[in-house]
Structure formats: structure tokens, C-alpha cells
């Protein structure tokens, strides 16, 4: 039996109480990582932790509001205090995405939640994790090392007609990843993005309400379906978190069944 790919590694996954973050947390745990489920509410985070433990994995929930830098700092500090290290930081949490007309968009209602949880929080997570990711790379002696993974969206590349301010927030995350990939290369830390289209609870609910939406998305997707949060999206995160991706940095992997092919 082959060794699990993240044995002895410690990962924080924000927004892991549901959806894509939950799928990533499960997949990393399956491969041996101790996973911190960083969720805004314990009511969503704890069931994910219990589920991971039931499957034989190791996980804890740390309640975290990614829009507040002190909360992110405390999450990372708590992680390192409990487990002695942090090797993989995954920032997935995001709030917002209300459809709007750009000409009528309001900063407080339509922009700030997405900017704060997407862009500011990416910088908060990176800043808090940085010394520990450097230490992770130093421990690995050139094999593997610290990993920062930001969850963006195909909309961050192609724009959005329905949620126009969503796209710039997601685009900014890609620019942060490229910048930090350049800045942290000397430490052996890799920084990458994933742009998923996945069957999150929100999307599946939307499908239930509007089956035509599901048909439209599947019809434009070469692989004919949306991604599974664990097997499809989590596996890409696993690749980026593992030693297999040691020479991949500054990149965005669009994981959407081929729906977007313009990168």
C-alpha cells in the first residue's frame, strides 16, 4: 500500500464548513493531512470535522471570520499551537455574489463583502501563514514545502454578465497568487489558484429550483457535468498541496469540465 501523500502535513482550509472548502478538506484528510476546518460558524464546521474523523482522518474546527485579520491570525496561531506546524493554507471562504446591474451596484452591498472575503482575506491568509510556510519549506529540504492555494473562479478570467463585481474580486486573487509566487519562490513556497465549477450546496439548490440551469451548464461543458467537490475539486487541491506539484507556481487550474477554455 502506497504512503499517503500528505502524511504528517497540516493544512488550514477556510470556508470548509460546506461546498468546495468541505470537499478540499475531506480530500486532504484522506491523504493523511491534519486538517483545520476554518469555518465562520461552528454549526457548519463541526459536522465536517466529525465526518472526517468518522472516515479515519484528523481534523479540528477553528471558528474563523476571514474578513477580520485578527481572526485569521488567531486561526493560524491556534493551528500552530495545536499541531506545531502549518504546511498548506487554502483560502476558499467567500461571501457575496448577488446578481446586480453594474451601473446600479452599491459598494457596501455588492462589492465590499466580496472584496473583503476574497481579496483582503487572501492577503490576510498569506500574511499569517507566511512564516510557517517558510518553515515548512525549510523542513522539506527542497522536496515539497509550503503551499498557498487560493480558490478563484473562471469568472475571474472571463468576466460576468450577471454578477459583474464578482469577477474583479476573483481576478484580484489570481494577481495576488502570481505576485506571491514570484515573491516567495526563493523560499520554495508555491502559490496557485483553482477555478472550480462544482456541485456546491448553493448550486445544487439552484438546480433543484431551475432544472433548465443545470441542463444549460451541462450542455456547455465538454465533460457534461459539474464537478464533485471532493473527487474533482479536492483532488486538484491535493495535487497542488502535495510534492507532485513542486515545480508548479503562479498558475490557475480551471477545474470545470472544460466549460471555460480561454485561459
Amino acid at each position, binding site marked *: 500500500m502506497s504512503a499517503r501523500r500528505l502524511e504528517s502535513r497540516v493544512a488550514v482550509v477556510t470556508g470548509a464548513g460546506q461546498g468546495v472548502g468541505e470537499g478540499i478538506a475531506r480530500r486532504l484528510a484522506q491523504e493523511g493531512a491534519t486538517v483545520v476546518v476554518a469555518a465562520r460558524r461552528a454549526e457548519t464546521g463541526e459536522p465536517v470535522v466529525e465526518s472526517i474523523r468518522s472516515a479515519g482522518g484528523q481534523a479540528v474546527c477553528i471558528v474563523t471570520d476571514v474578513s477580520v*485579520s485578527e481572526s485569521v491570525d488567531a486561526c493560524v496561531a491556534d493551528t500552530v499551537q495545536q499541531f506545531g506546524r502549518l504546511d498548506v493554507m487554502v483560502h476558499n471562504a467567500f461571501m457575496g455574489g448577488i446578481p446586480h*446591474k*453594474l*451601473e446600479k*451596484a452599491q*459598494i457596501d452591498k455588492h*462589492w465590499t463583502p466580496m*472584496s473583503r472575503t476574497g*481579496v*483582503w482575506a487572501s*492577503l490576510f491568509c*498569506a*500574511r499569517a501563514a*507566511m*512564516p510557517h510556510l517558510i518553515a515548512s519549506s525549510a523542513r522539506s529540504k527542497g522536496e515539497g514545502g509550503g503551499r498557498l492555494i487560493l480558490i478563484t473562479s473562471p469568472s*475571474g*478570467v*472571463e*468576466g*460576468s*454578465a450577471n*454578477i*459583474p*463585481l*464578482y*469577477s*474583479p*474580486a*476573483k*481576478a*484580484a*486573487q*489570481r*494577481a*495576488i*497568487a*502570481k*505576485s*506571491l*509566487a*514570484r*515573491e516567495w519562490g526563493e523560499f520554495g513556497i508555491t502559490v496557485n489558484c483553482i477555478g472550480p465549477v462544482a456541485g456546491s450546496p448553493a448550486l445544487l439548490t439552484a438546480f433543484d429550483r431551475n432544472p433548465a440551469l443545470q441542463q444549460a451548464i451541462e450542455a456547455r461543458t465538454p465533460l457534461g457535468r459539474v464537478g464533485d467537490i471532493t473527487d474533482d475539486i479536492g483532488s486538484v487541491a491535493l495535487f497542488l498541496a502535495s510534492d507532485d506539484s513542486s515545480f508548479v507556481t*503562479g498558475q490557475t487550474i480551471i477545474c470545470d469540465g472544460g466549460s471555460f477554455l480561454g485561459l
Partner: protein
Amino acid sequence: MSVKVSGGGRLAQVLRDGVHSDTRSAVIVVDLDGENSISSLADLTDADIDEMYEQPMQRVIAAIQEAHSTNCERIVVVVPTTGMSGGASYAPQAALAEAARILVKSAARQWGASGITVNAVAVEPHWFSIDTSISGAVAIAPRSLINEVSPVGIVTWLCSEAAGDITGQTIVCDGGLWM
């Protein structure tokens, strides 16, 4: 017809002096100042993020909304290539540049049916006082052209009647530095 150029700095002045159009147009120069670079992300404060990324981005959103409300037919947003390339020590500024560039695509998608075109022009980082020697791939890429590159020509064309079929695009105008 008129061209309104918003934003500060030398580039905005060059465009104010040089761009003319046969359409009602708005040119938005992102308010990005590379002089404020940080040596390391570890030194980045929340106030820095607000100053380098958040407030300038909110001004871009306000400017593009104003362009729509004043019935502009052509909107051009001017950014440094740093958003596409990334830049060591420039993470918040790169975030601003890329957010503004992709906002262009969203606006183009929403407003295209009204006959409004929205495009981006990406220029050499030095226009925004960004140190190209450390800002990314441009640090190792030879610049293909050696002449002084000005975005006045491409911005003028994107603001013209002739460019009515072009929208949602980014034209890189940097002498072949970033490809």
C-alpha cells in the same frame, strides 16, 4: 464629442493632452502608485491594503458607473501589465490592476447590448512608478521595441467610432515587454 480622462499622475495628463475622439468617451486611468511598494508581504498592514487596493478600486467602480450614467459610448480602462504578470512586492497593486482589467469584461458583457464598448489598455509598469526590475517576468524579458511607447494612439482608436466592434478586450501597449 468629448473624452473625459479620470485618474491622476503623468499618464493621465499625457492622455488628457493627446486623446481626441469622435465619440463620447471616458478614459479611466487606475490610480495606482508603485512608489508605495512594500518589501515583503509580512510588512503589509491593513491600512496599506486599503490605500493600495481598496480605495483605488472603489474609484474605478465609481468612474465606470459615471461613464455609463453620462452616456459614454466608449470606455477605456488603463492599467499596468503588473496585474497580468504579477509582481514581487506589488501584490496589492497587482490585485488592483487585475480587478480593474477584469471589471472591463463584466461591463462589456452587461452594456454591449446598449452599444457601449468597454476595453482595457495595459501599459508598461513604469507609467505607474513600478520598478520593472523586480516586478515580474518583465525583469528578465527583453523589450522588443526600443522606442518610447505611448498609449495615446491605441486609446484614441479604442475611443473612436471605428472601434465599435471591439469590446471586452485588453490591448497590451508596452513595446513588447510582456507577451
